[in-house]
Structure formats: C-alpha cells, structure tokens
C-alpha cells in the first residue's frame, strides 16, 4: 500500500468561522495506480491533494505514505518527503520565472545535494522524457502553456518520486494541449509511476483507473473506469 489515510480532517478557522475542508477521508491507493479526484468547486480536492502531497498537515487523522506515518512529521521532515517521494504538478505551473527550464528542473536536486554534473544529467533526462530537450535554456515566459506544464512535469519526475500529484494540470491549457499533457501522464503511468490527478472534467478523469468523487470534504463515491479506457475511448 503506497497511500493510506485514516479519517483525515483539515479544518480552517477564518475569523470566527470554522471550515471543514476535508472531513474524515479514508482512502487507500496502491503503488502503480492512476487515480483521479473529481468534485464541485470548494469540495476540498486541492486541500486533500495538499495533504497527500505533504504540503500541509492534517488537523486530525492519520496519513501513511510508503509505510511512513507522515501525519506526525515536522516541517523539515515533510520537506524531505516532498523532495524524495513526491512530484507535484500545479495548475499554474509554479516555475521560477527567471530560471531556465533546465534550472527549474534541477531545483529539487539542489535541495538534496546532488552534485552539479549529476544534476544536469538527470534534469536533461527528465526534459527528454517530456520531449523538451530543445527548450532547455528557455525561460518560462519564452515557453507556451503546454511547454511550461511539461517543464513542471519534468521537475516533478526528476527525483524519481514514488508518487506524482497533479492539481488540475490541464486547467490553464486548451483542450488539445491538455490532451497532450494527459497522454504524457498516461505514458508515465504505463512506465510504472503512481499518479493522482485532480480535475473537473470527466474526459480527463477517465484517463485514470479509478475516480474518487468528493463533496463537502467527503468521498461521496468511488468509480472504477478501467473498462472505459480499455473499451477504446
């Protein structure tokens, strides 16, 4: 079992109001799975993703990643897990604007002390995986949206993480470019990566094996969609 959450809660307090963004989510995800999370706006998809991605700590409940109890870890331990075990892809790309594509991809390696030669080799390899070898020296503002997202994906891949998370990775892209990115995720999945993506669109979600439907911070429904993909959709 790669991911196991037990009664996960995330509660925000804004002024006097308490918002339960995630309310008792218990899910299990195997290594090598491809999972999509769907749900209406404000249903807690991003919040759950941030918890799974160790960007945030739950208010209550337990989270085990790869056998380690992440829910009890300190900031720096979480930083280490994010660096080693998780590759995150954001809707808004979140690249460093003044750094080249290559340097952006190198970044996670800088924070785990990889030597510079090794770093460049790995970063180039990751950029090759997303078919961007010819854009290595470009800065994000010199790249198209789809290319930026592929740089972000290369950055997520470069450390060979146990888990790739993507929060609406196609949200800022047009349909064709989005489909390209989804093909890329599909390929990565076939190569053995575990992937979780958040999306609004069912067309995107059915690239996955399983869909979790979230409503008001709870898992409302779970659907196996392997048959749809296999039926050649």
């Amino acid at each position, binding site marked *: 079992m790669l991911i196991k959450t037990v009664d996960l809660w995330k509660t925000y307090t804004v002024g006097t109001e308490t918002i339960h963004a995630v309310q008792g989510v218990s899910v299990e995800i195997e290594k090598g799975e491809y999972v999509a999370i769907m749900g209406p706006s404000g249903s807690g998809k991003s919040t759950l993703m941030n918890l799974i991605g160790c960007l945030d700590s739950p208010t209550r409940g337990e989270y085990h990643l790869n056998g380690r109890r992440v829910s009890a870890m300190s900031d*720096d331990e979480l930083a280490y897990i994010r660096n080693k075990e998780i590759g995150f892809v954001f809707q808004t790309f979140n690249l*460093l604007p003044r750094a080249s594509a290559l340097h952006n991809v190198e970044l996670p390696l*800088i924070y785990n*002390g990889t030597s510079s030669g090794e*770093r460049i080799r790995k970063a180039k390899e990751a950029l090759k995986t997303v078919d961007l070898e010819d854009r290595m020296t470009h800065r994000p503002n010199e790249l198209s949206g789809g290319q930026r997202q592929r740089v972000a994906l290369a950055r997520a891949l470069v450390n060979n993480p146990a888990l790739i998370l993507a929060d609406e990775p196609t949200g800022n892209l047009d349909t064709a470019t989005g489909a390209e990115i989804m093909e890329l995720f599909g390929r990565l999945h076939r190569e053995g990566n575990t992937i979780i993506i958040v999306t609004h669109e069912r067309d995107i979600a059915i690239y996955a094996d399983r869909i979790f439907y979230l409503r008001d911070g709870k898992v409302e429904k779970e659907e196996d969609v392997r048959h749809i993909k296999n039926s050649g959709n």
Partner: protein
Amino acid sequence: MRLSGFTESLLIAFGTFRTHKMRSFLTILGVLIGVACIIGMVSIIKGLDKSMAGQIESLGSNVIYVSKFKPGIQMGRRSEEERNRKGITFEDAVAVRENCPAVEAVSPQNYYHRPGGNYAKYRNIEVTRPSFFGTIPDYEVVNNSFVVEGRFITDADVKFRAYVCILGYDVAKTLFENLDPVGKKILVNGDRFTVVGVMEKKEELLGSGHANNFVLIPYDTFTKIHPEEKELALAVKARSPELIPAAIDQITELLRRRRGVPYDKPDDFAVFTQENLMDMYKQLTGIIYLAMIVISSIGLLVGGVGVMNIMLVSVTERTREIGIRKAIGAKRKDILWQFLIEASSLSGIGGVLGIILGLLFAQLVALVSPLPAAVPLLWVLIGFGFSVGVALIFGIYPAYRASKLNPIECLHYE
C-alpha cells in the same frame, strides 16, 4: 549547508542584484559609506602612528626630558602647588651631569617666547615663529641631531658669549634657499648673529612644523640677552638604553633633594621619556579610535537598517518563489541561508567597495595634506567582517521570517 545550496543561493543573490540594480546599489551604498569611514580614518591614524614611531627612533630612544611640568594639554587651572613650582636651573643641569652615574650627557635648553612670536630675518626675508633657545655643545649628542653644514657651537662660543647661531633646517631653507648660510649675518628678535651651522632635517612630530623651525645660540649668550628666563628644559642622555630607568631614578632623587621636596609629597617636576610621550599619544589616539568607532557604528547601523529593509521587501516580493522552493523540498535552513547569503553578499560588496574607497580617500588626504596614511591590513579584514556581520545581524529576521512561511500560503500569495 551543502555546497550546491550555497552556490544556488549565490546565484539567486546575484540574480536579484541584476533585476533590482537601483535598490541593490542604494543598499550597498549604505554599507559602503560606513565601511569607508572606518577604513579612511584608521588609515590616517595608522599613518600617524607610523610616523610617530619613526619620530621616536630619530630622537634616540635613550633621551630623558626634565621640566617643571609634564607636557600635554593643560585642562583647567593649575593647582596652587603647580603654580608655585620653581623652574629647573642651570645648576640643576650641572648637578645631574655630575652626580647621576647613569647619565652620560645633559643638554640644558632655555627658551624665549617673544610676545607676538620670535622672528629671524635675513635681508628682507623673514621666518616667523621659530623657537629660539640657548644650549651647550652637548645638545648634538643628547638629541642625536647633528649639523649638516658648518659647525656646531663650541665651549668657547658659550664661554665668550659669542653672537653665533645654528639654524634649524627649515629656517636655513627659507632664509637662504640656495645660498650658503654659513658666515651670513641674521637678525633674531632684533639681535645680530652670525650663522655658523645648519642642523640636519628632523622628522616632523605630527606635522606641527616645529622640529626644523628653530634658531639655537650658545647658552651664555642667551642668558646675557634674556637674564629673566630662568626656566630650563633638560634633555638627558643615559649611558645606555638599559640604564634609562636607573637614570630616571637618580635624576628624580637628586632633584627632590635639591628642591627640598618632603618625602611624603609627590615630585614638583617632571621626568619623562619619549616612551611616556608615546603613551600619551596612544591615549589620545585611543580617544580618536573610540570616537571613530562610535561614528562608524552609527554609519553601519544605518547601512544595516537599509539591508534589513531591502531584505523584508525581497522576502515579500518572493513569497511565491519561497513557496515553490519549499514545495519541491527546500528545508527551513535552505531558505534561511538563501536570504542570509543574499544579505551578506549585498553587504559584502558594500564592504569591499567601502574598503577600496576608504583607502583611496586616505591616500588622497595624505597627498594633499601633511597627514600620512598607511594601509591597516587588520582593519581591512575587520571592515569586511563588520559589513558581513551587519548583514547577518540585520538579515536574520527577514530570513527567519521567510524560512517559517507555510508553502501553501506562499503558493496562493498574489
């Protein structure tokens, strides 16, 4: 911190300077001014110190001075006892030479201060405010200062009260330029003297202009002209540098006896050496150092506040970047160091430029004024250390704030 993180931080820092040239420059300027102040002032003080040391060597280290008062700046009114002090007499000088075994030679020097200043005149050329004193042939060996032209005064000159004089180097240069002064007649305060010799050039004490600006005549000639002048200064040469303390003791004991100082009262005269003068000088420069450190500290403080301000701005501006870095695995200390390195390289650049500017400034001052300048190597390091230290102290708060930020909040920051 890992090397990869360090070089990354340096790259980020220089990237920031490139994108924010003006404000980086202003921040650097703040530190630069503080450091330049320190280095400039220290250079000049060090230069003074060095010339002082040269001075002392040229005076001969085994010279002891005896006078009614200790030299130095008189603060406030002298005490009753001080005002009633008797002068040192020629008989005292003789007694010191005769009765102190550690003493090799004594040079009594009797000075005259004309109201409005002494003058020396050759034809229509005049030298203003030379010191004017009578002494004996031992002056040369005691003061380790010798004639370069002509001859010094002799025992016969003293005995027969000859109207001959020896000129300080500057006086000779001013009055005679390229002429040979020996044998020329000059007027000093209205009396006519024949120049018989010129003294070698002595190093100036703190650029006061007195070391080479004097006219010296035979002792007895002087007392004939100024019988009213009874206060002498004695320069005493010990038989060897090791015997200076013994000589001081012997002189002190002898003078106390001669002047009838009760055993339980302090000396009513002063016996001191060049080293004493050096100590006093050091005390004085100590005060200057202190004042300088205070002034420069204020300068550096202002620079530090500038660094802190810019770092706070930088942290706020780059909240999103911090979020990205944290999201992909930067630890607290990575972020902390990133901003500390940015602050210290800003400040360090200011430090280096400040050092260069300070040194140039001191050289410039040395060029256009009599003040000397030296390169204070230790202070160059201290100045650099200060600038980086200031950055660390003032940068730590913004950096700490950045390191504590929550990655999610940073990523949502607009």
